[in-house]
């Protein structure tokens, strides 16, 4: 085997936090060969970014490298001085970041930011650098390089900015490209284009890539080899097809089972619990407390990375990596929620009817008002009881405006919203209060929607207190609903900062469910969550719907998630309805070109490919 290009060897990194050392990465080893694409997947906090920025020798100030080394062509990167690093960064090792909106300098035109790299590393003069930059812009499939060259970053769309970043990273034809969640901040369709671009450029330029993402679909679409990180530990490493199709690690298998698939309604299954942050966790298996196959040894001894037959190309950190029992571990999960079987809306069971709803945003005061912005145009739909209608669309499509307008939170709304036959826009104060009790909303970001000063009990009891429910009854109902969302009495007196992201979202859901609403509007309720937690929340939503017999308006940009939960779909773009209808036909044979593009853009992968070949 040839010398690897980059060799990370036994790297342990911890962070100094308030006098303590919190380990973040444990004896992490990974070799990357020239021209190879390695994907690193993991949920938030698994140590992906730490590993990636360590390669650049650009760790936060409170990071401590406890052990290990990173060598690039024999150069020890962790002990290299700034001058050596400056020679490598941008020239041999280049990076693409998660958010191209903040990664580009707002005060410098895009082209100059690329040209600067050429001048610094390849000795171009000003005119030559400009010339070459435009070629690079063309290489990343930008059609009008002259305009983009002259544009400030804020004048470009998210996808354009990421192309500029990629052009910048590739400008010196680096040996290794480090990509930190390069598609996460982009809209679905743009995401797919950028992934395609990276794949084709990689074939052309043969740079090696270390691609880090929490999105298994994106990694599957591009990587030859995949490493799976969990809580700072490399759980499994191997050829992409084997990791996706023949994983021998319970965590990887759990993760795979949790990823919703666009291809059809399959059981998504959450992994109970949350990742361990215990500083002592590396003395045992870090996944032990969440693992269905765990035995005594898992809590007593740290598993080694065991080779998985037939060869050592795939290795799994599990005491039972070669025991068939782990294949069965996740199989007794929940069944897929099936689309509700009732016949379609007979008038009697209609819950919500929206007719000709438009929303205009007035900008500024009347005096110098600019033309009104139409955020929503003429949207109509009907939602029967106990059904789930998904509103899908990219950012800025008007999804959240629609949600707010239905709850009468948008002053610029016109049209009609009928809830149980009553016109919401015509309700008096008392009627509006009753309506808002029966129609609840849950937002994407539980951290900002929960008041940090209030305990879980106070948060969940609040809607009841507003409805003047007696204190005794409040306590009972809060307990019941917390139990229903999977939080025990233990949580009653906790405060939001003591909760994980998934737990916070459960509290937000409990608060919505406690009034036993007929309609719950879920505005991207799982977007801020890790996949395994997302799956658990989806399971919970399906269960609560059965229990309360309520309807959901499920707002999401993620079509794979929508596929798992919705009965009907409405596709929004620029505030207008593109297409709507029952889920199966719409996903199988979308009539609208935009819908087709949205569906095609979801990175998909199958877990049952027996043989190799290039991914996807």
């Amino acid at each position, binding site marked *: 085997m040839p010398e690897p290009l980059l060799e990370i060897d036994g790297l342990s990194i911890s962070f100094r936090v308030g006098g303590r050392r919190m380990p973040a990465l444990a004896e992490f080893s990974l070799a990357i060969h020239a021209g190879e694409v390695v994907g690193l997947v993991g949920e938030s906090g698994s140590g992906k970014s730490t590993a990636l920025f360590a390669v*650049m020798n*650009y760790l936060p100030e409170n990071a401590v490298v406890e052990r290990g080394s990173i060598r690039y062509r024999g150069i020890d990167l962790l002990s290299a001085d*700034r001058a050596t*690093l*400056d*020679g*490598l*960064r*941008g*020239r041999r090792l*280049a*990076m693409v*970041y998660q*958010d191209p909106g*903040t*990664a*580009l*300098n*707002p*005060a*410098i035109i895009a082209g100059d930011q690329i040209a*600067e*790299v050429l001048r*610094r*590393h390849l000795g171009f003069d000003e005119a030559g650098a400009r010339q070459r930059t435009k070629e690079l812009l063309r290489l990343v499939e930008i059609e009008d390089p002259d305009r983009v060259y002259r544009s*400030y970053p*804020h*004048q470009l769309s998210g996808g354009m900015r990421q192309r500029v970043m990629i052009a*910048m990273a590739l400008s010196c034809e680096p040996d290794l490209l480090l990509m930190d969640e390069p598609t996460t901040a982009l809209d679905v369709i743009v995401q797919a284009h950028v992934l395609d671009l990276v794949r084709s450029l990689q074939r052309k330029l043969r740079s090696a890539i270390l691609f880090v993402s929490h999105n298994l679909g994106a990694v599957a679409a591009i990587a030859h080899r995949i490493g799976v990180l969990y809580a700072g530990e490399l759980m499994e490493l191997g050829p992409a097809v084997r990791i996706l199709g023949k994983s021998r690690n319970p965590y990887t298998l759990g993760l795979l089972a949790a990823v919703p698939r666009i291809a059809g309604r399959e059981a998504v299954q959450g992994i109970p619990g949350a990742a361990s942050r215990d500083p002592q966790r590396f003395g045992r298996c870090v996944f032990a407390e969440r693992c269905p196959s765990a035995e005594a040894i898992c809590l007593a001894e740290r598993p080694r990375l065991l080779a998985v037959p037939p060869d050592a190309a795939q290795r799994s950190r599990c005491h039972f990596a070669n025991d068939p029992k782990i294949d069965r571990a996740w199989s007794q999960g929940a069944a897929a929620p099936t689309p509700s079987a009732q016949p379609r809306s007979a008038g009697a069971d209609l819950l919500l009817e929206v007719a000709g709803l438009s929303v205009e945003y007035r900008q*500024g005061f009347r*005096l*110098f008002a600019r033309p009104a912005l139409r955020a929503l145009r003429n949207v109509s739909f009907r939602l029967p009881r106990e059904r789930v209608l998904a509103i899908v669309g990219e950012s800025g499509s008007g999804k959240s405006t629609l949600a707010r307008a239905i709850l009468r939170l948008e002053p610029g709304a016109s049209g009609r919203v009928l809830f149980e036959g009553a016109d919401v826009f015509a309700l008096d104060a008392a009627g509006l209060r009753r309506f808002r009790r029966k129609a609840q909303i849950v937002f994407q970001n539980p951290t900002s929607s929960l008041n940090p000063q209030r305990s879980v009990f106070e948060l969940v009891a609040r809607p009841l207190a507003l409805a003047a429910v007696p204190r005794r009854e409040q306590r009972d109902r809060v307990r019941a609903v917390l139990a229903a969302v999977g939080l025990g009495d233990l949580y009653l007196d906790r405060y939001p900062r003591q909760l994980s992201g998934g737990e916070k979202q459960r509290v937000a859901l409990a608060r919505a469910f406690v009034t036993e609403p007929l309609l719950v509007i879920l505005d991207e309720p799982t977007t801020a969550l890790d996949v395994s937690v997302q799956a658990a929340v989806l399971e919970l939503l399906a269960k609560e719907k059965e229990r309360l017999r309520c309807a959901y308006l499920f707002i999401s940009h993620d079509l794979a998630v929508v596929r798992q939960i919705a009965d009907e779909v409405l596709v929004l773009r620029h505030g207008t309805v593109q297409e709507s209808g029952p889920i199966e036909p719409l996903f199988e044979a979308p009539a609208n070109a935009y819908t087709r593009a949205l569906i095609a853009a979801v990175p998909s992968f199958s877990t049952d490919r027996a043989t190799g070949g290039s991914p996807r």
Partner: protein
Amino acid sequence: MALALLPRRIFYGLVSLAILSVIIFVCTHLLPGDAATAILGEGATPAALAALRARLGLDQPAPLQFAHWLGGVLTGDFGVSTTLNQPAGPIIAERFLNSMALALVTIFCAAAIAIPLGVVAAVRRGSRLDGTILTASYVGISIPDFVLGPVLILLFAVPPLALFPSSGFVAFAASPAGWIAHLVLPVAALTVVLTAHLMRQTRSGMLDVLNSDYVRTARLKGLPERLVLWRHALRNALGTTLAVLALDLGYLMGSIVIIEEIFAYPGLGRLIVYAVANRDIPLVEDVALVIGTVYVAANLVADIAHAMLDPRLARP
């Protein structure tokens, strides 16, 4: 603020000035005793008072007086000072220029000291140098100007040093050297406070920029730190600092009242103190309005500076 919003900002500025003018007028007219009593004294005969009131227009209804005053100001007629018996306009103009000289020299000095120090403190964050700069700025902020002024006089204006005159003023045309000598101590007093404030603003603005994603990008492109700072960081950090500077001009108008009084410097601050002390109501009204206008204009300049320096606002 995007540049497109400039007309609206100007409009709001004018509205605030209109409101201010009403407040000034109402306040001066609520004071006990009117201009006529102030001029003639408590012992004046009712007939003399009435005659003077008629001459000054004080017998007219208040709204009419207000319109008369504001109309005059807008057309450049600031009325007549009742105690000096001179047109107020030229007096105010002269004092205004003196105060502006003081303010602008102060701002220039403060910027020249504070911006480099603030940048250095941010770049060397956590170092001894940073610590020293920060401590000095705390001290600077916590010394009130009415203490600092006399201290400077005791140190530099009386023997043994006696380097600068302790008070007074010499016109630039008469003696440039004298003009400068008389400016040194008041400028020094004002600069201390302003520098402390500006330095902290610069430091925190620069720190934000140094922790930004785009500075990380610049470093990970392999640019040497010098280029990272000059090309990528400073440009963004200075935009906010310059805007702060313009705002400080407004803030300075407050300190100037005290400092001018301490150093007997003939500016607007001293003039308004004189006018209030002597019940010279036209003068009080005019000077208050001029100071308010400087304040509003400074805010506007701050907004414009900020918008012009940030391409996100200048070119949407």
